[in-house]
């Protein structure tokens, strides 16, 4: 379904039900929307503490995180993935792996910058609808070891590409679709660069493991992507309200 996003559209998008809520929302954020186009500072309820919160290894309680529904849910899904990538590369650059070359150092710094920019942008765009800061578990990664770091980077970048490719059709707003398009090609540029420095096969940047016989890259549903990302995310991500078509 194609349409431009307006403040009126945001109301059903945010799942608002009470007329009072709707009036307050429009009054509160109408100006912000008018001036920023898509800024989503709305009045969606702050997520309640949920019973199915997970505990970390240290016994610390970690909240379950519902992504929400509609376009907001998809943007939160993207925001969760960008949080994951940003957290990973922040750890990479804080402790560069042994024997890293100057050019690889620049590449890691650059990618870190891009993922942090994606993360911060999505948080700002989502405003009050943004999910909380997630907690991550990178215990499976040896940050001192080049092959471990780059193999993880490859997984995340390829997954990011497949995630955005699969999520495009779930968006209602052409404005959000364009933004997703602006981000996904950068993830694909990353994926190719990481593969190029990690893998011996010069064809790997767009290898047959990710590109099919029609010359198409992968496209994964949110369910698949979140399953694959789950080992790295401490919070339980609740995606059952996301659109499925």
């Amino acid at each position, binding site marked *: 379904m194609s349409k431009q996003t307006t403040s009126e559209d945001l109301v059903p998008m945010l799942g608002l039900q009470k007329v009072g809520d709707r009036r307050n929302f429009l009054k509160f954020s109408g100006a912000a929307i008018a001036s920023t186009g898509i800024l989503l500072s709305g009045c969606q309820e702050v997520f309640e503490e949920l019973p199915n919160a997970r505990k970390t290894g240290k016994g610390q309680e970690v909240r379950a995180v519902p992504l929400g529904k509609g376009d907001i849910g998809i943007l939160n899904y993207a925001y969760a993935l960008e949080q994951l990538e940003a957290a990973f590369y922040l750890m990479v650059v804080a402790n560069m792996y042994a024997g890293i070359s100057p050019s690889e150092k620049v590449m890691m710094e650059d990618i870190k910058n891009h993922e942090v920019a994606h993360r911060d942008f999505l948080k700002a765009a989502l405003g009050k609808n943004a999910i909380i800061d997630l907690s991550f578990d990178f215990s499976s990664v040896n940050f001192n070891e080049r092959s471990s770091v780059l193999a993880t980077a490859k997984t995340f970048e390829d997954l990011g590409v497949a995630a955005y*490719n699969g999520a495009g059709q779930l968006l209602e707003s052409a404005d959000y679709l364009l933004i997703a398009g*602006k981000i996904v090609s*950068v993830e694909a540029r990353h994926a190719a660069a990481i593969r190029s420095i990690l893998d011996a096969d010069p064809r790997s940047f*767009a290898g047959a493991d990710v590109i099919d016989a029609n010359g198409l890259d992968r496209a994964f549903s949110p369910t698949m992507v979140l399953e694959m990302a789950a080992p790295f995310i401490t919070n339980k991500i609740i995606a059952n309200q996301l659109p499925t078509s």
Partner: protein
Amino acid sequence: MKIFEVLNKYDIKTEELESFTSRREAFKKLTNFGKSVAFAAIPVGILAASTQKVSAAHIPTVLNVLNFALTLEYLEGEYYTMGINSPNLIPAGKDRAIFETIEKHEVDHVAFLKKAIMSYGGTPVAKPTFDFTVGGAFSPFTNYEQFLILAQAFEDTGVRAYKGQAGNLIAENDALTAALQIHSVEARHASEVRRLRGLKGWITQAERGAGMPEVTQAVYNGEDNLIQGGVNVTTVTPIGSDGITEAFDEPLTRDEVLTIAGLFIVAA
């Protein structure tokens, strides 16, 4: 420019679309959605089609986009096919493996888009006649450096072209997803070709990069945008403007793309 007229000629009328639903099914079969494990969880197929409003009104737009994409893929496909068939042009080993990979994808895209267009009841545009020397200004098939320059320009243009069309496919999920799946392949190619030329895989500001001639600047204009969805990104992140511009690739309009591609088209 003649290429514009030719593309417009192929727009089809809504009333010509009779068995639209069966065409949509044909497209699904074409992309093999549901068959491969990778796509298994994406809810397409008969079930999705039955819940989706069956309306053919947007199909002319979809076909227009697909024929536009086909024109670009013809250009890329022929360029790389000529490149890998030019003796002593592409160094054996790594470079050759890279360009054989890219060539295969572009040729695959041509075949895929032709089938996709027919599955929607359209007619694929004919392949234009290309002149990759632009009247003798370039010699990409005897000079490897120039071959790389045009390859970078074509790939970075391809990324921007598909991005600019995504919104026009929003009502047709399968075509949109397929276009996105081509878009990210073009971005992988772009990154690799840029790195082969000694550049970063991503575009900083609106810089065409070292060694790229002035004539290619149209490919990079506008890449220095800092405002995304109404948000000035510099105000919400500590990342500097170089990093922000690298983090977001920008679209080109159809006309901007056809102006760039038109340089290489002799007859449409």
